[in-house]
């Protein structure tokens, strides 16, 4: 005869037992009970079988080899050009980079400037751990010239938004410095980059993929602010973030 409360408790723990997620003590508790309870042993076997049948119901794992090749190819194309060239480590590659930069300089308008900053906000800021806090040592290691001192100049707090991360952020042929501000769960990205792709377009679509962007240019540098659409931060915050970042990049041009 087994205790009914024991059975109820064991059945609550049973799935975690199957997944090896129990503490040693709870595991022993379940094992001791199973030794003397036929009904729970039968229930355990039924749940094991149910789990195996659920996995079986999805059929065999799909063959991913073709997709792996497709993904590798897509990454090759997404890879910043200077990385690809640097991979060869040759003078010729560096010359090609200079030529490439020359081509970029010749472009009068950087049409993708706002779109790329939104896409980078999605790819980078939104994958930041929700509990990330500003860590001066991590930030120091993550910043690269010429932006390594930017955190000494920009605001760390604007309204309810607090600076939680700053890092060099190569993305889609761009060398951004990326500042991430957070208020609750809401993230705002501030990007700065050298204006090597051309000047900012006079008009752009402010909303992309549910996010809004705005920007400013000092001529040699561009600054962008990206936030979630509909819940964007107050204009005063956006204004302060742009102004404080612009103050830093202006100094780079002196």
């Amino acid at each position, binding site marked *: 005869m*087994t205790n009914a409360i024991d059975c*109820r408790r064991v*059945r*609550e723990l049973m*799935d*975690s037992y199957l*997944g090896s*997620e129990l503490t040693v003590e709870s595991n022993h508790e379940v094992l001791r009970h199973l030794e003397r309870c*036929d*009904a729970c042993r*039968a*229930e355990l076997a*039924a*749940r094991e*079988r*149910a*789990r195996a*049948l*659920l*996995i*079986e*119901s*999805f059929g065999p*794992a*799909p063959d*991913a080899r073709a*997709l*792996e090749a*497709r*993904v*590798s190819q*897509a*990454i090759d194309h*997404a*890879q910043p050009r200077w*990385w*690809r060239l*640097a*991979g060869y480590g040759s003078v010729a590659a560096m010359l090609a980079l200079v030529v490439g930069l020359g081509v970029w300089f010749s472009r009068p308008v950087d049409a993708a400037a706002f779109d790329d900053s939104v896409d*980078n906000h*999605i*790819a*980078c800021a*939104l*994958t*930041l751990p*929700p509990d990330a806090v500003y860590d001066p040592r991590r930030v120091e290691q*993550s910043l690269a010239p010429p932006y390594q001192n930017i955190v000494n100049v920009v605001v760390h707090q604007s309204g309810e938004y607090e600076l939680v991360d700053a*890092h*060099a*952020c*190569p*993305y*889609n042929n761009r060398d951004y410095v990326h500042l991430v501000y957070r208020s609750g769960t809401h993230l705002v990205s501030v990007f700065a980059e050298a204006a090597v792709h051309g000047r900012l377009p006079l008009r752009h679509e402010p909303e992309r*993929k*549910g996010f809004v962007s705005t920007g400013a240019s000092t001529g040699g540098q561009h600054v962008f602010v990206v936030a979630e659409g509909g819940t964007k931060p107050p204009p005063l915050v956006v204004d302060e973030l742009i102004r404080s970042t612009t103050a830093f990049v202006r100094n780079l041009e002196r």
Partner: protein
Amino acid sequence: MARRLREEFNDQAMPHVAALLRTATRLCGSRDQAEDLVQETCLQAWRSFHRFEPGTNCRAWMYKILIFSHARLRRDQSRRPFVTDIETADESVLLFDPPTPDTLTAQSMRAAFEAIPEAFRVAVLLVDVEGLTYREAADALDVPIGTIMSRLNRGRRLMRIALVDQAADYGIDVAAADRKRQV
């Protein structure tokens, strides 16, 4: 540096493509959509890989990007939030925890799985089918581990209830069968 970063990505992230495809196929229901979702996930992961901390769980990180991308895709398609207020749903039903019927098939399990709310279904998919730990699933879904345990508990229990309902349709009294097990 670029070559080393790419080698690290190939070593740490690319081995998860097959598992991600399996999960994506189950989330999307279509192989084509699943492949697009996994490709997008890998590209996002590559673009952010300079921020990935070596030694942390790459599988959970990749799953997090997959789930986020899938949720965004769905939100874009339906303009509705991915997770509704399910944490307090079906309390009265969940007071009842029936035994698992003996008469199960892969089809009946799949039907029970499809019958539960999506947030519970994703938790069950990640842990019971894909074999993620509770911690990995919590990281992937960006929720506390207690929330994962609660969703799993409710999801599995709702599946058992669905299975009992199916068995009853075939005239099988599961509770009576369980009482018989205890004799």
